[in-house]
């Protein structure tokens, strides 16, 4: 059984059919790239998968359960975590607090009363979470920045913290929405290394939306191409690169 099985997913905004009949299967450990020109519906697909949009038709099966139309926090609780296109860190909170927010759901086992009265169980959980999140920041060589406000850190660092924050939740599927946007060449290669490292270390299943074609082609074994809300091709990088429909979607047809 596939980890993620998306069937006939469509999203209609009034008269606009943003995505229609989208299908995608992912096995555990897959790394799939999702590409397409601007406005082709990539972000809409992401928003449906993470619960921010309720699909007009279709179904999303995750880990054997139907998660279509659940709230974002319910979908997060089932193990799908995402990062956002332009980054959505809590910029007035410290790096450590941000990563701890990824830990939020696992800490929810303690009641508010336990939190107020510092029951032994609560203190143990909280301590464990802090240690684990500190380790994650050290993995990113950010151990000495853990008490900095993230709004003051370099943009590349912020993006990596955002990925680390989702990892703290121990997701089964990671949705990365343009993690390279706005990064310098150096930061970009850093980010690529980090994504590959994450995939190997946690055997993470990753769906990656990206505009930088070189990145997608070099790290994704399988690529799906969207155009005008329809998936036109799915295959290996070389299959996609040589497909007439993809070239047409990106460059247009010769008159």
């Amino acid at each position, binding site marked *: 059984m596939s980890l993620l099985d998306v069937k006939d997913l469509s999203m209609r905004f009034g008269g606009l059919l943003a995505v229609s009949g989208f299908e995608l299967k992912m096995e555990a450990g897959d790394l799939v790239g999702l590409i397409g020109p601007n406005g082709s519906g990539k972000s809409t697909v992401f928003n449906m998968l993470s619960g921010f949009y309720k699909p007009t038709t279709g179904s999303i099966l995750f880990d054997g359960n139907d998660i279509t139309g659940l709230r974002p926090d319910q979908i997060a609780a089932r193990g799908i975590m*995402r990062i956002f296109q332009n980054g959505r860190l*809590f910029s007035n909170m410290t790096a450590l607090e941000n990563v701890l927010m990824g*830990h939020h759901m696992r800490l929810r086992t303690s009641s*508010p009363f336990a939190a107020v009265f510092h029951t032994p169980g609560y203190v143990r959980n*909280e301590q464990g979470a802090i240690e684990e999140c500190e380790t994650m920041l050290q993995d990113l060589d950010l151990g000495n920045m853990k008490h900095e406000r993230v709004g003051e850190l370099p943009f590349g660092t912020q993006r990596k913290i955002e990925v680390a924050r989702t990892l703290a939740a121990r997701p089964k599927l990671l949705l990365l929405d343009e993690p390279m946007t706005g990064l310098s060449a150096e930061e970009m290669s850093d980010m690529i290394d980090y994504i590959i490292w994450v995939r190997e270390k946690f055997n993470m299943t990753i769906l990656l939306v990206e505009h930088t074609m070189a990145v997608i082609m070099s790290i994704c074994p399988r690529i799906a191409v969207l155009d005008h809300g329809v998936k036109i091709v799915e295959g290996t990088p070389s299959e996609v690169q040589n497909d007439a429909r993809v070239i047409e979607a990106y460059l247009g047809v010769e008159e």
Partner: protein
Amino acid sequence: MAAKFNFKRIRSLVAIALLLLFMVWGESNLPRYYIKILHFWGIYAVLGVTLQLIYGYTGQFSLAHAALVAIGAYTTGLLTLSPETKALSFLLAPPIWPINVIEWPLLPALLLSGFLAALVGIVVGAPALRLRGDYLAIVTLGVSEIIRLLFCNLPSVCNGAMGLKGIPMRATLWGTWLVVVVTLFVVRRLVDSNYGRALKAIREDEIAAEALGVNLFYHKLLAFVVSAFFVGVAGGLMAQILGTIDPSTFGQVLSYAALTIVILGGVRSLTGTVIAAGVYTISSELLRAVEAPITVFGLDLPGVPGMRVIFFGVLLLMLILFYRKGLFGEHELSWGALQSWVRSLRSSRERV
């Protein structure tokens, strides 16, 4: 590390004990007027600290404090008045059961005030907290007014516009300040916990918080209900201190007072809020002068009640326009901060 932590904790406990001892001493040695000011300082501190939880940390702009104070005050008032007094003072309509027979000691009455206010918090918050920003402010403002009008128009429950008179004034100074300490403790612990982080995350970015699995509604309601409980208790104390309450006691001014205190103290500074509550209470007493009738150049000007409120309105406006950080910004008045302050004073004196 652990030893130092315990030392700090002992130091804080000693400071709290000293504060309460001062209140016990003040109860019998200070003039009645000062005692009343200290009581109101405590009550405003509770109102400010609880609004910090909703507004400062969670970013939800609520103006329901006045109504919640009213619920608490009426609950404690009705529970602590003797059945005979109630029978005598309910002139418009006789009190209904169980109000006509009930008489409780202060502590359980205060607790029930808190629980009822929390219940109202759930009933109001459940639909209202689905709204954001200005809309939440408008709805809570409206609900606040509705609740006040209910008190005006329920003669058999709360004596309508005539209000309650002769409420036994059993609140002690140390009791009021114990409520302040407990409120501070609970809010501080909550804010520093996983729940508090989620509240701050909601304030920062609701969408990102939701994507990380934060149940927005549950957390907003949690902040709202915890606040409502302590506001209810503060309301109960207010009834005990005033002795006489009627619906006009709980006008919107109370909600704005809490807001002014929060912004004056510094958004997200709990100790700053307590200090600001003192500044607010004392200056509002000093400003009574502007409401008195005065003679300017032989011209007799009648006293205008409510002039003080205009002053606080202007103050709030000025704070928001020019001094948004308030007295403390996001900092807390802590031992470390005090030490570094003393050190900086010393070094500046040495330089001179």
